[in-house]
């Protein structure tokens, strides 16, 4: 098993009076895919939003407990959130490219993070990122066309390319395939397989089959609690917890 990259200790999240996460202790391994599953509202998205402090943008949100990346506490007030988000990229449920050209979608991040000084450096980053996101061949001749003109699946790969353009260490994916057709989904899954060689990936998914296919580790959340976490194969063949079993076999409710 790979080394632990991200560690959460007694993580609690509150939205105003409502507690969304309860004492979550979860280790995520480096260069591995961890899938988070659970019914809507169980806290899995809240959890991944803690990893790049996306919850900071919600005024009423309060986080207690720790999250460490490479042993460094990220909830530290003095931590530079912008550089944290450079290290921890995110891809959302609905593809959300900027209303700009394909090229600008990719080059924007490196530019603001001061990673591409010259045009040729940026060209190189754009090409490399699009290649890594398995999109280069499809768009190389129309880089100046708007990103929003691509198909849904292509847009999502563009967003992945945008996330990796700043060379992050972690990629968070919040239901990245839920708006995509099976072929586009297959391409993203194939891509995840490739990306895990370089990045630590956390994916929230409602598709059990997808969790089994892409991840090595799976965590099951319910009502804000991490109920069970373990090797994906074990979770889907023979989970320890009855609640996990009831959820993955469709007996919930």
């Amino acid at each position: 098993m790979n080394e632990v990259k991200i560690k959460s200790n007694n993580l609690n999240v509150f939205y105003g009076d409502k507690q969304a996460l309860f004492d979550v202790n979860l280790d995520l391994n480096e260069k591995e895919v961890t899938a988070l599953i659970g019914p809507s509202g169980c806290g899995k998205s809240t959890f991944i939003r803690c990893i790049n402090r996306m919850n900071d943008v919600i005024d009423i949100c309060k986080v207690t407990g720790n999250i460490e990346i490479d042993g460094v506490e990220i909830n530290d007030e003095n931590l530079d959130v912008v550089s944290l988000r450079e290290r921890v990229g995110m891809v959302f449920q609905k593809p959300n490219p900027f209303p700009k050209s394909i090229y600008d979608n990719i080059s924007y991040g490196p530019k603001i993070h001061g990673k591409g000084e010259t045009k040729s450096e940026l060209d190189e980053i754009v090409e490399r990122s699009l290649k890594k996101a398995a999109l280069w061949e499809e768009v190389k001749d129309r880089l100046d066309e708007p990103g929003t003109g691509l198909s849904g699946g292509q847009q999502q790969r563009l967003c992945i390319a945008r996330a990796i353009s700043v060379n992050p260490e972690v990629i968070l994916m919040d239901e990245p395939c839920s708006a995509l057709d099976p072929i586009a989904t297959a391409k993203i899954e194939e891509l995840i397989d490739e990306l895990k060689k370089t990045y630590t990936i956390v994916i929230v998914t409602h598709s059990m089959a997808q969790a089994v296919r892409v991840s090595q580790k799976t965590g099951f959340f319910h009502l804000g609690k991490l109920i069970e976490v373990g090797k994906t194969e074990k979770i889907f063949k023979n989970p320890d917890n009855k609640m996990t079993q009831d959820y993955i076999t469709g007996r919930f409710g």
Partner: protein
Amino acid sequence: MSNEHTVKSYEEELQFLVDSVIKMGSLTESQMVDSMDAIIKVDKDSIDKIIKSDDEINKFRSKIDTQIMTLLVKRAPMAIDLRETISSLKISQDLERIGDLSKSNAKKVKPLPLDLPEELLSNLKRLGELVIKQLNDVLDSYVNKNYDKAKEVWKKDEQVDDLTYIAMESVIDFLSKDKKNLDFSTHLIFATKNLERAGDHITNIAESICYLIKGEYLKGSRPKGKVIQE
């Protein structure tokens, strides 16, 4: 099984699959009882009926295969449901093989003389009774999802091995007394071996049931009794 599925028809399909395996098991058991009876009583009239009942068992096997394919494609079962589906596949395969062995034994009745010595049949009868009991117990453990009982059956196959050895020896003994007995003695040896093989399939079923219940295979190798060198 725990709570019911949210999708009722899924629940019904799984239950229907389990019911099919139980029915197939019960047919296999009756067929084995009949074929043992036919040998012990040298009842040549019942042979055809036993052979026919094997067709019935085979039909169940194809039906179960279809049900499993449908479940896999429709429901993509997980965890306990996946194990239930996969064990049904394995158990039905073993039951079908047991059916073939009982059919094969029924066919062996035809060349047997009506005046077989009692001591020759008594050991075979004991073996047959034990194998039937094993089959009954293993099916019972499947119906009641009883792990301990399935494991008990698995362990008890050692006794099947021992009785096979004894039954074989008595046939060989009988044969060595008079070479004229060669023809039907060979049939009795095969019948004995078939019962021993049926016993092995029963232990496979016990293993499948243990895996179904606990999600892990029985550890270590099964205790083995005396065996005749092949």
